[in-house]
Structure formats: structure tokens, C-alpha cells
């Protein structure tokens, strides 16, 4: 790797970490209901929304009511997305006159966007009208992200408070997240992206004359090309910030109109991890000990950097099979070298691998390169970051509440080892919390492995596989893992827009989103009711390097133990086969 690549990676982390504290601090203010500098702008709007919705902003909910409100809102949102796709042909803002989307694809997309997964079985520019993109996709990009963040805020309140059953008001958390956090950030980012050339228009698709005519399959000469455009920048900004990942165009952020320059690429990558990382600081701030937030952020970053390094290394080394064909894969001043299959030349190996790691770690799912074309180990890293439970930064909100479940398990075992019944931040961890934390750890493993098993056993599952051998197995495993982690990225080799995959993945996305979110709320509710035990020298410190290392160990061990056999039959054996010859 050349010094420029190093510099770009280091620069990325420096900027990210510089933004963590200010944004985290601001979000803590938002969730604690305090005044922020945006109050003059959004305050009146916020109050108007409450008045229109009949929300009593100062009435807090217990965790069950909170969960019910959250579910009602999400299921309604899901139905709206489904409905819009089915009737878009009769609605305005459809210059290409796109017809109704099939029921199974509509179901898949509805769950996908409501659950913050943004798995896309469809190609955006050939399937969705502008109205559907804006009213269904973009709206869900905001509110599904806000749902995750609201659930996290409620869980944190549960940890921070004591002897109460109130953990916040869902409608208030949802509204404040959208108004004060997501809208302003998305607005700024969208403008910055437009400045780089990302399209934002309502006009119909453009036709351009080809410089060099080509002949199509039927032998006809083709002289023009249709260029898909649309209100892309606004959707791209939020799909990155809200760890949604659902692109405006089919090829996502590899498309020049979605991600034109290295600078737009940097901004979009930064947006992937920005909110999940800053939420760690918010957590520390809200529980009254910012060291706790930094500890979790450091644990995430250590795992991320270690896996990213392997990915960059393996991608830069390239494929020996390609080298044997006489292709120069050595890096030089005129040659990026490495494995450039499926990567954009304007981004190169390092930035593609960084995006690949960030998008899989953060449950984002947007891509600026094709994961299917990565080296087996590169693909393994991306898949494994999903397998770790989408807790290395993870989705906005969902990543941290997932990580907190791991921390609770880590605290439980470590707490025993220091001779006390375990406690985290002064709260006793007992049977109920263990039950809920176990569910959060268990369900993604269950859905990913069982889904893959069904995929490889049924003809419907097998027939979508493009590539032979272990790579085909990896494609199926990746699809079900992506749905189980609410990630949304894909190994493109699998044709997932079939009734089987649309239905199965839709079910899994639904389970993996809400059966994790509800236990997280339950943990918050249960901890809120408990007394707070003051810390003493006998209390397990949860911010020390030792505890950080232990938490990393727990995340890695649980992730490895659950998925190593499956990975051995996919990417590991593929890697060994390539390098054995």
C-alpha cells in the first residue's frame, strides 16, 4: 500500500473522531429534552407536530407502551411503502410511467426500508417512480433510522435512571431525532454532494449521444444512451447518515451520479460511521460517565481497524490467478495494483476496502465497489462484520443497543470473576437481562444460519446462484447474513429478486429488526426499575483497557463460534483453493 492510501485511511479516522464529541454532545442534549441551538428553527415545528398528532410531549412511557408505539408506527410505515409500490402507476411524479411492483418484491422492499435494512432486490431507476422514491424510500430512510435511535435513547435512559418505569416518549424521540439530528445533517450533506455533481432533479431521464456507436445483441447499431437522473442527492445523504444504504440507482454509490468524486466518496463514507460513532459519546454523556462511551467506541474501533487492515492487505495483494494470466497486479505509480475487479478506478483499493468494511460494520449496506468481486478473505471480512451482530458501530441506534447486549454478557462473566453478582453502571445484571441479551445475540445467528440452510436445501434457493463452488455458497450465506444483520448489502452474484428470496429475506429482516429492538427496550425498562449501586473498589470497572479488551474478546468469540463452520465452507475454503494452486 502506498503512503497516499495510508494517509487517506488515517485522515478518515481523525476526522471521524474529531466529530464524535460535538455531535455526540449535541445528540445527548436532544435526547435529554434540552434546548439546542436549533430550537429557534425547529422548535415551533416540533410543537406543531405534537399538536397535530395529539402527542403529550411531557408524558413518558414505560417500555411496553414505548414498544407498542414503535411497532404500530413501523407496521403502518411498512404498509404505506407496500401500498405506494403497488399503485405507483396511478400516481403523479412518474415521468417514466413505471408500473406496479410485484407483490413479493413490494413486501421485501417494504420490510427492507422499514427495518433500516435497505436490501434492494429491485433496480431503483427501472422500478420506482420519483414519488415512490421520495414518499416511501426517503421517508423511511429518515424514520427507520430515527426508530433505531429512539429505541437506543430509551434503552440508555433505562440504564441512566433508577427506580422508575418510564423510559421516554416514543413520539417525542422520533420527532426530535428527525428534526434536530437527521434533517439538518442530511440537508448539509445533500448540498455538499450536489456541489460534487450528484444529481437532484425532477426532470425525466436524459438521452445522450454516444461518441462511439456500438451494436447490441441483435446487431442493431446503438447511437444514444439513456441516462437515469432524479432527486438523488437528498436520498443519498440520508441513506448514508441513517445507515440505510438503499441507493437511488441500482449500482448504489458506484454510480457516477450518486458518488462522482473522491471527495463525495469521502463524505459518504464519513456519513456511514458518523452517527453510530457519535452515539457512543451520547451514551456516555447520558449515563453521566463519558469514559463508558469512549470505552465502547474504542472496542468497536479496535475490531474495525484490525479487520479493515486484513481487508486492505488482501485486496492490495490481488488475485494470483489473475496474475498468472499476465495481468500486472503490482502497485506502482501508474498502476493501482491489487484486486481491481468490481472496484471503481476513481476510488481505488484502499477507499473501496474502507467503504466495504464501514458499510458492513455499520449495517449500512451501500456500496462503492462490488463485494462479490472481493478476494475470498476480503469478502469474509465483510460478511464477518455482519456476523459479529452489526455491533461494530452498527446501524444508527441499533448498533449500540446490540453492542450493549454484548457488554452486558461481558459484564456478567467478568463480574462473576471479580466475585460479585454482576452489575453494569450500578445496575445489577440478573436473569431477566441475561434472557433479553441472549435473545439479541441469538436471533441473528438463528436467522442467518437457518435461512442459509433453507437456501442451500431448496431448488428455489439454489437456482439463484450465479457462481459455482464455495463462492456460490458464500453468496447465499451473504444474502441471509445481510438480511439478519439488517445490513442490506449483497454479493451481487445472487439473483435475489425471486419470490423465494423476496419472501424469505423479508421475513428474516422483520424478525431480526424487531426481535432485537424489543428485547433492547425490555432491558432498558428492567434496568430503569432497579436501584443504582454506588461504585466501590470492589466494582468491576467497565472503562479500563482490560475491560475493553475483554469486551472485544466476547464479541469476537461469539461471532467466531457461531459462524466459523459456515465460513469454513465458503470464503475460507475458497481462499485456500486459490492460494493452494
Amino acid at each position, binding site marked *: 500500500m502506498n503512503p497516499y492510501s495510508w494517509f487517506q485511511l488515517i485522515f478518515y479516522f481523525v476526522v471521524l473522531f474529531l466529530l464524535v464529541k460535538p455531535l455526540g454532545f449535541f445528540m445527548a442534549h436532544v435526547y435529554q429534552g434540552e434546548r439546542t441551538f436549533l430550537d429557534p428553527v425547529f422548535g415551533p415545528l416540533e410543537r406543531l407536530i405534537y399538536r397535530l398528532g395529539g402527542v403529550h410531549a411531557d408524558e413518558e412511557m414505560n417500555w411496553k407502551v414505548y414498544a407498542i408505539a414503535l411497532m404500530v408506527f413501523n407496521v403502518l410505515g411498512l404498509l404505506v411503502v407496500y401500498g405506494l409500490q403497488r399503485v405507483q402507476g396511478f400516481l403523479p411524479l412518474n415521468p417514466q410511467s413505471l408500473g406496479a411492483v410485484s407483490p413479493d418484491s413490494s413486501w421485501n422492499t417494504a420490510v427492507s426500508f422499514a427495518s433500516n435494512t435497505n436490501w434492494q432486490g429491485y433496480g431503483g431507476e427501472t422500478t420506482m417512480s420519483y414519488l415512490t422514491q421520495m414518499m416511501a424510500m426517503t421517508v423511511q430512510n429518515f424514520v427507520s433510522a430515527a426508530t433505531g435511535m429512539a429505541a437506543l435513547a430509551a434503552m440508555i435512559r433505562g440504564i441512566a435512571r*433508577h427506580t422508575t418505569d418510564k423510559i421516554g416518549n416514543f413520539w417525542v424521540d422520533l420527532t426530535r431525532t428527525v428534526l434536530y439530528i437527521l434533517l439538518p445533517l442530511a440537508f448539509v450533506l445533500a448540498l455538499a454532494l450536489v456541489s460534487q455533481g450528484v444529481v437532484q432533479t425532477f426532470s425525466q431521464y436524459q438521452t445522450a449521444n454516444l461518441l462511439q456507436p456500438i451494436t447490441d445483441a441483435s446487431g442493431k447499431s446503438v447511437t444514444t444512451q439513456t441516462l437515469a437522473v432524479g432527486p438523488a442527492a437528498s436520498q443519498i445523504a440520508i441513506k448514508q447518515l441513517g445507515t440505510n444504504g438503499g441507493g437511488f440507482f441500482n449500482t448504489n454509490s458506484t454510480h457516477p451520479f450518486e458518488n462522482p468524486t473522491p471527495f463525495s466518496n469521502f463524505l459518504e463514507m464519513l456519513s456511514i460511521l458518523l452517527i453510530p460513532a457519535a452515539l457512543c459519546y451520547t451514551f456516555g454523556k447520558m449515563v453521566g460517565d463519558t469514559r463508558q462511551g469512549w470505552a465502547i467506541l474504542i472496542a468497536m474501533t479496535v475490531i474495525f481497524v484490525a479487520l479493515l487492515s486484513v481487508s486492505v492487505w488482501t485486496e492490495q495483494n490481488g488475485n494470483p490467478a489473475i496474475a498468472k494470466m499476465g495481468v500486472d497486479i503490482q502497485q506502482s505509480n501508474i498502476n493501482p495494483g491489487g484486486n481491481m475487479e468490481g472496484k471503481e478506478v476513481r476510488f481505488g483499493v484502499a477507499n473501496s476496502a474502507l467503504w466495504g468494511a464501514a458499510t458492513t460494520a455499520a449495517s449500512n449496506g451501500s456500496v462503492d465497489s462490488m463485494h462479490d468481486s472481493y478476494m475470498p478473505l476480503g469478502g469474509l471480512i465483510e460478511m464477518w462484520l455482519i456476523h459479529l451482530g452489526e455491533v461494530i458501530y452498527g446501524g444508527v441506534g441499533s448498533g449500540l443497543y446490540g453492542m450493549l447486549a454484548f457488554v452486558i*454478557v461481558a459484564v*456478567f*462473566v*467478568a*463480574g*462473576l*470473576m*471479580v*466475585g*460479585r*453478582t454482576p452489575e453494569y453502571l*450500578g445496575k445489577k*445484571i*440478573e*436473569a431477566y437481562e*441475561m434472557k433479553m441479551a*441472549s435473545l439479541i*445475540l*441469538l436471533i441473528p*445467528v*438463528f436467522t442467518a*444460519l*437457518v435461512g*442459509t*440452510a*433453507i437456501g*442451500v*436445501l431448496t431448488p428455489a434457493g439454489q437456482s439463484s446462484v450465479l457462481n*459455482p463452488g*464455495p463462492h456460490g*455458497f458464500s453468496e447465499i450465506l451473504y444474502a441471509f447474513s445481510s438480511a439478519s444483520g439488517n445490513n442490506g448489502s449483497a454479493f451481487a452474484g445472487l439473483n435475489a429478486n425471486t419470490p423465494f428470496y423476496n419472501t424469505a429475506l423479508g421475513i428474516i429482516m422483520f424478525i431480526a429488526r424487531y426481535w432485537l429492538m424489543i428485547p433492547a427496550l425490555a432491558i432498558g425498562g428492567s434496568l430503569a426499575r432497579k*436501584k*443504582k*449501586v*454506588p461504585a*466501590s*473498589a*470492589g*466494582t*468491576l*470497572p467497565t472503562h*479500563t483497557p*482490560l*475491560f475493553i479488551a*475483554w469486551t472485544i474478546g466476547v464479541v469476537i*468469540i*461469539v461471532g*467466531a*463460534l*457461531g459462524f*466459523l*463452520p*459456515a465460513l*469454513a*465452507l465458503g470464503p*475460507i*475454503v475458497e481462499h*485456500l*483453493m486459490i492460494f493452494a494452486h
Partner: protein
Amino acid sequence: MNNQLKKQPTFRRELYQRAVLDSFVKLNPRWMVRNPVMFVVEVGSVLTTALWVQALFGKGEAPTGFIATVAIWLWFTVLFANFSEAVAEGRGKAQAEALRKTRQTTQAKKLKTANRESQYELVASASLRKDDIYLVEAGDVISVDGEIIEGIASVDESAVTGESAPVIREAGGDRSAVTGGTRLLSDWLIVRVTANPGEGFLDRMIGLVEGAKRQKTPNEIALNILLAGFTIVFLIVCATLLPYSLYSVQIAGKGVPITITVLVALLVCLIPTTIGGLLSAIGIAGMDRMIQRNVIAMSGRAVEAAGDVDVLLLDKTGTITLGNRQAVDLIPVNGVPAQELAEAAQLASLADETPEGRSIVVLAKEKFGLRGRTMGSSEEAPEGMHFVPFTAQTRMSGVDFDGTSIRKGAPDTMMTLVQSNGHPVPADLQTNVDSIARAGGTPLVVARNGNALGVIHLKDIVKGGINERFAHLRKMGIKTVMITGDNPLTAAAIAAEAGVDDFLAQATPETKLKLIREYQGGGRLVAMTGDGTNDAPALAQADVAVAMNTGTQPAREAANMVDLDSNPTKLIEIVEIGKQLLMTRGALTTFSIANDVSKYFAIIPAAFASTYPVLNVLNIMHLATPQSAILSAVIFNALIIIALIPLALRGVPYRPVGAAQLLRDNLLIYGLGGLIAPFIGIKLIDMLLVTLHLV
């Protein structure tokens, strides 16, 4: 007692024989299902046994010998786990039985009628029943709680109340109750028993160490949930591996799918059998360790809570200070020569058999070179000497000889004596009395013929080494609070000397209860000892409440532990046992999960050897054959349970260092050790199997 048990080889053989038998009895599925991890192993054992039977008929999925060996070692895994529980149970039961026999009893002088002169019968205090009547005389320990029918006496209740000054108890009125375990200093009393002695504590204890009756403790339940969670994960991993294997064989076009035998072997190796198998034994062994220290716990929950204790409420007397005060200084007043005071003080104390009196004689001898006039017993009083013993009525003691009368007693009594003799109270007497009291001591005034000579400074003596103990406790994060009936000045002085973190002076049952509630309101867990009836509310409120065996029945019922030795310092050991119990669970859980890494490296390359031979790169232990690899992992998994039984029973050693250091040490030993040990173990077993040509 327990050490004697251990040394008897016949006893040990019987214990193990019984345990081996019990291991088979416990195979009953209805019993096994209580332990989800080991139940899964049992189901796996049945399954592989069935596969073996199938193989016997020539339709085996793998060589018959291989299936048989796997099945046998899976059965061993279950049996070893059962054995660990049976051994822990057996030891606990034996200890409880031995305790029942050697239980300490005090003697009581049982009377037929409430008459001092009537004949008494010496009986064991435990045989006294409600409404029995017994006699207590000076020097006797009051056997059980009762109501005074007749008599007035001074009673040393320091063991109960923490107040070192004797109190007066008399028939009728508010002060008519006496407490078991207190000691009569003077006079006599006739007492009617008000409560039956404790029954069935030991029976309850035996119930707690018997697996069948044992209730799982809250933390054990939480840990079981985590272990069940891991078990489900590995069930899914292994169950889905079959379809993956079928698909891989199909796309690779070679090899055979993974066999059920190998899948079951993999499953058993992965699920946390080490901790799952030993969990029950660890809990029982915690109770055993309590009994070894002569503490009977009423519930497993209490033992667990002991590890969590943040605040120790310790009675001053007997725990922090020696039970009795000692003379440390003689201060003359009104210009009296020190020698004269020392002589008078010594004479007045010659017949005083209390530790305080003895200490005055010793002090006079050491400081002023005075040899007691009579160094023998008080009966050999020199000619003309007449000793006046302390009585509850006069509240002073002394000696009369040659027309001289020497008295010593509490300042207020003595000042009255001086004044009634028409003498002035010396001006420096009051100041000296006050300054001693301020320093935490007890002043005694000495007078000769009604003239005040000076003051004896009696002081509570803080136990040797107690300071370091409190420093240890502080490092463990435990706050110590001294409870005393003394005034705040005295209490503060002793608290400072002993190095406790806080104190509660002039403690009453109400203030004690209030203090506990305050700490608990702040989220802390409070442990205390007590034995008086008036301790009962506080004992019931405390999270860990240890009643002294000499304590009253209400106190013992309110407590969740009883200390048969009635040693208040034991609270510290109880806390350590609680911590050990939790640490052992945590350490073995870590060990068990860390073990899994090596098992993947052993089994995965072996399981897919025919489909993807290239996976043999992962066989970093270079195990001989796929079959030897799988067998080695299974055998290691079974043997490690046996190897760790001693640790489970003994507990992970606890050292009073901070939590951070404990975690570091335990992670190094059980985390890193758990990661590395199986690599070595599995390799050794593999080499052995190859050498013996078993595979």
C-alpha cells in the same frame, strides 16, 4: 473436625463409592432436564448409542468402533458431571452429620421450682423448653432467652449489645429479659425460658446441599440462561452444518456429507459442558465451605449475596475490640502520690476476678513494681482483709482492712460516696474523668476512707491486626461501620484507632435498622451480625445477617446464617466464601467458552476432510487422522470435567485486591489458559491414541 474427616481413608472411599453410584442414578432424564447443557449431552449420548446399534447391523454411517468410542466418551461426559455433583453433595452431607454430633452445648442449672435453695439439675441448654425454669449464678453464661422471675444482677451483655459496661437486670419492669449468650457478673437470677431452642437448622442445611432439594440461586439462574443461550447457538450451528455439508458435497462433486456422529461430537465439544457440568457442584461446594467454617446458611441466595456485600456493620465488642476493657493508666488527683494511688487501686482489685480488675493489678505491678499482697486466689485473703464484691445495688467494689476502706467504682457513684463522707470532691477529679471519657476510655474513681485518690483509665483494646483487615476490606470495596452503644466521643476514638470507615454510636435497635435502610436505599448491600432479640428487626432487614449460635431465637430466625462458633469476625470470611463462589462460576464459564476455539481447529478440518481436503491447513495441531482428531476433542472435553472437579469444590482462591486486578489475573489464568490448554491437551491425547494404535 472436617480435617479429621478428610484424613480417614475409609470415609473417603465410601464417599466416592457412593458418588459413583449416584452418578448413574442421576442419569434419569427427569433429573437431567434441570441442567439444559448436560441434558443435551445425554440426548447426544443416546443418539450416538442408537447409531452404534444401527452400525452393528451393518448399516453404520461410520466405522462401528468409532461410533462406539464417541458414544462411550459422551456417556462419560455426562457421568463425570453427575459425579462432581454427587461428590459435593456427599461431602456436604457428611459435614452436616458430623456437625450435628459435635454441636456445642452449654450447661444449664434447671430448677423444678422457682426457689433458689431448691436442688438443680445440670442439663444441656439445648434441652430447655419453653416455660422451663433455670438458675444462673455469677460467672455463668445465660443459656437461652428468658424472663427473670426472681433476683437482681449485673449482666455483661457486651456480646449482644456491644456495650462493654455491665447492665442491671432485675425481676419485674422493663429490664426483666435476659438474652442467651450473655454472662452474669454478679449475684444470681432465676429465669423462665421464653423460647424453644433452635430446631432444624441443620436439617435445612442438609437440604441445601442435597441437589434434589436445592433451589437454584438467582445468579445461578441467570448464568444458566446464558449457558442455555450458548447451547442453542451451537445447536443451530451443528444442525445447519448438515445441509451446508450436503450442499458442499453436491457442488464440490466429491466426498461424503458429515455424519451424525461427528455432528453430535462437535455439538458436545462446543456447548459449555465444563461449566454446565460443574455448576451444580460449585454451588453445593460453596455451602460446604460455609459448614467447614461452622456457619450454617439458610439459603444459597444468602451465600451469593455475601459476595456482593458493600457495607459490613460490625459490633465493636468482640469484633473490633477485645471483649473487655483494660487499665492503661492511673492518674492521681489532689496531689496524692502516684504510688499511693497504685497501691490503693491494686488492693481494691485483688479480689476482682473480672478481666478489668485483673488488668488493674497487672498495671500496678508493671508500672509501679507493686506485687499483689495476695498473688494467690482471693480465698487466701490476708489476716484482717475483707473484700467487698461488686453488687448491683452498691455499684462499687473494694476492700476493708485495719479500719481502712478502699473502694473503686463509676465516677458518679464514687463522687456521691465522697460527698456523703463530708469530703470535698477534688477539682482535678472531674477534669480527669472527662478527659478519659473524651479519649474513648472508661474512668473508674478510687477512694480511700471516702477520700478520692485518683482515676483509673480503662480502655477498650483494639484487636491486633484488625487495622490491616479493614484496610483489606477497603481494597475489596467494602465499607466497615462500627456499631457501639458507647457515646460518640468514645466511639470516635475507637473507630479512629481501629481504622473503620464509619461508626454508629449510642446504637439502639431503631438506629441500627435506620442505618441499614439508609445504606440499602443508596443501593448498597449490608451484612451484619447480631444475637440479641432487639437485633432481630435489623437482622431481618440486612441482606446478609449472621446470627450467633449463642443468640436468641428471634435473632436466629431473622438471620439468614447462623455461626455456630459465635465469632463475629467470621463475617469477613463469609464474604470471602461468597466471592469465591461467584468467581469460580465466572472463571469456569470463561474457561469453558475459551476451550471452543481449539475444538473448531480440531474438528472442522476433520469433518470436511473428504469434501475439502484443503481445509487441512486449519489442522494446526497436526492431529493424525480425522477420526483421531474428533476422538481427541471429545475425550479432552470429558476429562477436563474430572480434572476441574477439585477446583470446583475448592473454589478459585480469593485475594483481597481490587476488582481490576482480580479480573486481570483471572482472565489470564482462565481466559488465556482456557484458550491454550486444550490445544496441548488434545494434541497429547491424539499422540496417545496413535501410540496405542486405537485409531
